[in-house]
């Protein structure tokens, strides 16, 4: 008999694995190995062992959390970090159902499969038209010839400003070969269905009178046996969104250390150009991986961030001269006067057609360090998980941290005289803290929030503090009272990207 000992709230993540395994059309999950997990033992060990059985067992036991003894926060953090690793492994597991600890660098992953995730621009279409999950990928005409030659076995990335310029136009990131880092955003079917159902895929739709009173509330995942979110079957993972960062890998030798994809990259539109937009074929290597996952017990979402372990040194390593290169975005031994640290590149930032993905200043390289180091506990957990990933590229990835809402009671109103908050309880009227005390307070990925790292309140990167400010394009009609209008977009900036006009 399996005893579920203590369940981290990130238990939902476990079902993300199951859910995804189940969805993949072509996936045939191998018959479960007969391996038993140590957590089945009685008495069970103190913590959940991290061993290869985790990778194939359908529903592994969750990390023991044990908040009652010692540092509750650190214990819960460990639980969430464990959940983040399982999520990372579930999403990056091979789409064909084979084992991740036997995957090749370019083995396509579950999240890259169109039946599991769609890119943002495939949802927010020109003219804001609706679409179906099963619609085929719309390939930009500039890429069509190459796409057909490759029989569609290629990732297509159509670049916009956010594909090379970090959030709020804070700047691009240039690697040691002088190439732009490229960013992409994807959503799963739960998010897609919600957007289509409420006509949020277009600006006009968001601004419609019907949507004026909508309180955007993406579906939240729940365990089987937990009370699900409205209209969601328990066991459904709920809304999952991903943001990835890629490095251009021109040299074949580099490709052994990264998860790679074959990609067609369409350059961002330059209105000053008369030439056709170049669509360049590139091998891209994964360097950054954000996941946002909404669950019933964490309605402010759970925020996971991974990086390639050789992206950048920690600031403290540099100060104590302990950095060990080579790094993707840092040159060891370069003097700060030549390589100013964490500075944005020289302007202009926009890529030029004639340069492809190379930065205009061919000498410039971003010199980036990690300002806030990983905790020792995270480093330990990283090592343990990397050890079960065999000789695959996946052992080159590490968890930075998981940001999660730590104030468990923040959604409740305690004054009996006022009615309970309207469904959803996500973040609509919560005061004073709609983010529910994010733990840790700050979190930044060196490739995705490069220039806003730090620990200065509000200014420095924090997934939830920033995403908490996201609003939709909803409009209050004149006959609706201002106090009844809510335009929070449930911690995602995706709805901003809905269009009404042609992009080209």
């Amino acid at each position: 008999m399996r005893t579920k000992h203590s369940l981290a709230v990130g238990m939902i993540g476990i079902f993300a694995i199951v859910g995804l395994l189940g969805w993949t059309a072509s996936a045939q999950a191998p018959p479960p190995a007969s391996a038993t997990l140590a957590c089945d033992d009685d008495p069970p060990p103190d913590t959940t062992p991290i061993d290869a059985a985790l990778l194939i067992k359908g529903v592994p036991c969750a990390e023991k959390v044990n908040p009652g003894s010692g540092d509750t926060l650190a214990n819960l953090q460990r639980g969430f970090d464990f959940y983040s690793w399982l999520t990372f492994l579930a999403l990056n597991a091979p789409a064909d159902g084979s084992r991740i600890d036997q995957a090749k660098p370019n083995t396509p992953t579950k999240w890259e499969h169109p039946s599991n995730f769609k890119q943002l621009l495939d949802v927010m279409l020109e003219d804001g038209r609706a679409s179906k999950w099963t619609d085929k990928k719309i390939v930009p005409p500039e890429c069509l010839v190459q796409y057909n030659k490759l029989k569609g076995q290629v990732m297509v990335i159509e670049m916009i400003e956010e594909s090379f310029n970090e959030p709020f136009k804070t700047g691009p990131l240039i690697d040691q070969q002088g190439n732009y880092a490229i960013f992409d955003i994807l959503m799963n079917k739960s998010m897609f269905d919600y957007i289509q159902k409420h006509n949020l895929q277009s600006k006009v739709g968001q601004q419609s009178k019907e949507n004026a009173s909508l309180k955007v509330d993406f579906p939240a995942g729940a365990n089987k046996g937990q009370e699900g979110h409205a209209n969601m079957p328990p066991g459904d993972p709920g809304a999952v969104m991903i943001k990835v960062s890629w490095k251009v890998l021109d040299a074949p030798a580099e490709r052994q250390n990264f998860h790679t994809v074959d990609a067609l990259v369409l350059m961002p539109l330059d209105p000053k150009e008369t030439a056709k937009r170049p669509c360049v074929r590139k091998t891209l290597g994964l360097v950054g991986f954000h996941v946002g996952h909404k669950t019933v017990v964490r309605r402010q979402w759970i925020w996971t961030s991974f990086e390639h372990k050789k992206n950048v040194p920690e600031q403290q390593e540099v100060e104590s001269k302990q950095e060990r290169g080579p790094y993707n975005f840092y040159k060891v031994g370069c003097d700060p006067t030549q390589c100013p640290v964490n500075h944005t590149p020289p302007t202009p930032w926009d890529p030029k057609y004639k340069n492809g993905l190379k930065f205009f200043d061919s000498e410039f390289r971003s010199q980036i360090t990690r300002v806030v180091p990983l905790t020792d506990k995270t480093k330990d957990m990283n090592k343990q998980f990397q050890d079960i990933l065999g000789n695959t590229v996946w052992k080159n990835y590490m968890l930075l941290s998981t940001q999660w809402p730590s104030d468990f009671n923040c959604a409740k109103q305690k004054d009996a005289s006022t009615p309970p908050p309207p469904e959803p309880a996500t973040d609509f009227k919560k005061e004073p803290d709609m983010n529910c005390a994010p733990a840790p307070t700050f979190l930044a990925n060196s490739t995705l929030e490069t220039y806003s790292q730090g620990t200065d309140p509000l200014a420095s990167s924090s997934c939830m503090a920033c995403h908490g400010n996201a609003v939709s394009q909803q409009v209050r009609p004149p006959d609706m009272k201002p106090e009844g209008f809510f335009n929070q977009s449930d911690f995602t900036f995706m709805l901003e990207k809905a269009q009404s006009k042609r992009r080209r």
Partner: protein
Amino acid sequence: MGGSLPNKHPIAPNAIEDEPAGVVTRRTVLTGAAAVTAAASVGTALDTPAGAQSVDVNSQEHMVLFVLLSSALTGIPPEKLAPGGFKLQSPNPPAPTPPIDLSKSIPGFDPVDVKREYLTRANEKCPAALEYLLQLVRKNLNASNRDEAIIAALQFDDDDKTKRPADVDAQYLARSIVLMWYLGAWYEPAELKALRKDLPTDPTRVPKFEVVSPKAYTQAWALRVAQAHPMGFSEMQFGYWTRPPNPRTDFI
């Protein structure tokens, strides 16, 4: 969150968070008990009434006392000053009834942890007066009117001749502690005392203070108590200002 989940399993998923001590396998109870025994030996030492113990900012017990002190003085519940599971424990669970066992009490573990900055500051600046105050809490730990008793001991006039210098120092440190919680700023107890002396003759005298840290400024209570937020630090949503605020109980 916790209340809405059905308790279908003997070990309910939500139980962990609602009751931090609720890990229920036999093994962990044993482990927990061991921790109690270990801490108890330290705890008994602190109970000596001699009182001249220096304050250890890393001691969970001292932190619990500091939180109780701060809560009494500021009027803000301890779970708000020390979020993340602040709990007073008595030897016989489930209900905390006197006598309180400090060694088992939990100071709360929250990501911001501004209480540590305040305890550290008070200890650096006025260690003797701080000890006095923590001892005051300890003396009233199990009183049914603990907060009132603490306040009563610290409210007296400047010219009250029955009070010794140590009492006066404690009174002014108490005020400095309140101001730290309310404003994120450190006003020296001596400065507070001097202001009362100087202002009648020099009404333009400007108080000297310093901000404890950017973090402390953003955790200040003065405007939360007014159902708003520190200026420059809002964790609320667009348009909230067009509605009256949530009830005061959401803030404190």
